[in-house]
């Protein structure tokens, strides 16, 4: 007959969610604190009680913070946290630049009067929020999570209400949603050089606006997705050359998320030969960037000491 688990066993099982070295450091004492707190007025609770939902959420929250480089976490967790920050920053930058440019173009040329409907204010709101999330992340604002949450809700609403096939909806939702989830996961911390990030944003705007314009002069089918592939390759190349592992890791993640968007038109088929060629070229470029950046990031992680040592 196996022994019935006590409250202590249940707390210890819950605390297994904590990563090392924090688990070894705190699990014993946290168990003692939990038991003292919960059994002070009800000793029988030690026999049959169980951690409540608030305790579970609290421990999972601590486990997430420790896995993302919070104080007391391992060197690997610090690198993971920095990578998640880069995913949030680069991903929101990649979303904010085309959205801002589209709004700018619409302000300069509102288009024909019949271009109306709920998607017009929706797109404006999404663009404003995208720029706001990026700004909040760069400056470490306390409202970063709130703005990221609002934009994520907007994307989810759009994904739920669309009539597009589920495959393409998911393919387009993931590169938008994952950076916002990353923004929700990390604590808002101001970057070292905000000016550089705003300069990068300006560069992204010029890239997004400039490359398709050039393609009009020398007819090449440069889609916004192909421009995104070029942008990620530029950032990835700089990250690999400077062995900046978090940035390389983030480019690898964003590359993986963007590849399905680029592959989708090729899978569906059709379109002029020039368009297919550019799209296929962008897929090859982004796939190569993703692999090189992933290898750089994984090597950097392996060089760090294991949390258990």
């Amino acid at each position, binding site marked *: 007959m196996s022994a019935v688990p006590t409250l202590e066993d249940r707390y210890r099982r819950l605390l297994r969610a904590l990563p090392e070295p924090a688990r070894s450091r705190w699990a014993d004492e946290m168990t003692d604190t939990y038991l003292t707190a919960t059994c002070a007025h009800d000793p029988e609770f030690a026999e049959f009680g169980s951690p409540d939902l608030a305790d579970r959420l609290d421990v999972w929250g601590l486990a997430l913070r420790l896995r993302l480089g919070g104080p007391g976490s391992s060197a690997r967790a610090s690198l993971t946290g920095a990578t998640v920050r880069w995913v949030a920053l680069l991903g929101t930058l990649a979303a904010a630049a085309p959205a801002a440019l589209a709004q700018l173009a619409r302000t300069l040329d509102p288009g024909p009067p019949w271009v109306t409907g709920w998607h017009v204010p929706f797109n404006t709101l999404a663009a404003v929020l995208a720029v706001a999330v990026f700004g909040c992340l760069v400056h470490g604002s306390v409202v970063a999570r709130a703005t990221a949450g609002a934009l994520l809700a907007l994307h989810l609403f759009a994904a739920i209400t669309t009539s597009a096939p589920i495959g393409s909806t998911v393919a387009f939702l993931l590169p938008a949603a994952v950076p916002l989830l990353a923004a929700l996961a990390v604590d808002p*911390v101001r970057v070292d050089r905000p000016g550089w990030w705003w300069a990068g944003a300006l560069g992204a705007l010029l890239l997004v606006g400039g490359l398709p314009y050039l393609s009009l002069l020398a007819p090449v089918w440069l889609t916004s997705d192909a421009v995104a592939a070029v942008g990620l390759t530029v950032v990835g190349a700089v990250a690999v050359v400077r062995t*900046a592992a978090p940035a390389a890791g983030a480019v690898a993640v964003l590359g993986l998320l963007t590849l399905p968007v680029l592959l989708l038109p090729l899978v569906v088929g059709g379109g002029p030969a020039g368009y297919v060629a550019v799209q296929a070229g962008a897929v090859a470029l982004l796939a190569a960037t993703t692999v090189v950046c992933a290898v750089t990031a994984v090597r950097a992680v392996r060089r760090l000491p294991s949390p258990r040592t």
Partner: protein
Amino acid sequence: MFHNHALSGKAWPDSLSSMASLTEPAAFVLAALADQPLHGWGITAEVELLSAGQVALRVGTLYGLLDRLTAEGLVEPDREELHAGRTRRYHRLTDAGRRALEAEAVRQEANARALRARLRVRPA
């Protein structure tokens, strides 16, 4: 890249710790440790008493906070004791922690004075 001392593994300089304003739970944890070293449950109980039940620290939050305050040099380990077969770690306030708490008290007193001064102004 980021202003995250955890990434570089460095503690904040003393002057910076004492200048930065503390969150409410952090201020109460430092206050709980002001007169004696305490273990986790001792801190939780003392904070609840000091705040008249207004601040109820959850255990995960407390240990995350202790890690942060230790990394910032405001709190340090004191001693370990065994209790019912489990380790109890005691934590104590450092000199930097005492200065940070003093600075926070001064800041809150100044805020309170400013608010009372506004209340004394009668509308015309």
